[in-house]
């Protein structure tokens, strides 16, 4: 694994999305904005990435409805249990998901279809809030 100079990126975002075209678009946009992006096609892949000590992830941006042993809710619960300091943003198109997502992560949920810039703004706020907490 290559080591990243932290001064050259704004942080690492784990994008978890099973629809490859959607994942590609948001990942390309985030890279374009200066973030390092790790792509996972489902929650199982995301857990493998999060368990790797060589990869430091600042924010997880995950779809809710995904095939596999875990959906986005289960992934958010896994993160809460195993990586309590890590911020999670959930996205999905099912209306009932919104309130459940709000319960699971403070920053709640971004409805699909989303604008890439809305996601970037949310991520930027989360990373800024964490930096402020660290300072105080």
């Amino acid at each position: 694994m290559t080591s990243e100079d932290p001064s050259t990126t704004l942080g690492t975002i784990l994008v978890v999305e099973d629809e490859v075209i959607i994942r590609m678009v948001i990942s390309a946009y985030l890279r374009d904005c200066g973030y390092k992006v790790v792509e996972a096609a489902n929650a199982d892949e995301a857990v493998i990435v999060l368990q790797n000590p060589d990869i430091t992830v600042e924010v997880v941006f995950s779809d809710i409805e995904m095939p596999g042993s875990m959906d986005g809710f289960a992934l958010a619960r896994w993160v809460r249990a195993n990586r309590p300091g890590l911020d999670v943003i959930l996205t999905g198109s099912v209306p009932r998901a919104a309130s459940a997502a709000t319960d699971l992560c403070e920053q709640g949920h971004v409805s699909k279809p989303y604008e890439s810039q809305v996601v970037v703004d949310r991520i930027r706020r989360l990373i800024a809030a964490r930096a402020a907490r660290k300072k105080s």
Partner: protein
Amino acid sequence: MRRAVSIDGVVSLGDASRVSATILVVEDEVLVRLMLADGLRETGYTVIEAAGADEALAILQSGTKVHIVFTDINMPGSMDGIGLARIVCSKCPDIDVLLTSAHQGTTELDARIKGFFPKPYDMQTVLAYIKSLFEMRDARSNSSVVKE
């Protein structure tokens, strides 16, 4: 800093013939995929990641410009890397296909396949080979493919 990059990989440099060098990496093992994708991005290539042949075909069918497909052979899903390579070679002859596998010499490779890397492969070897493929592409055509 923001760069003007559109989703089809065309970089706005004031010259429509200059297209960013794009590699589609198809690998179901996320850490293996990540390591190769990182290495290629650090070298300056645009990388698109697919976790299987079905994802790779969805990318190719979306019209996204891809120059090289680097695919694992043994993958779950409706199709393995050999099946993907066969489709790419016949439907998209402009795309160079590279294969990789932990199982060596089990399959007779299509003559149109541009290379095979037994796993575990050396990253520098793959990078050098991809660089030479792009140089050959440049020599074949007048349109230049540029790294970002």
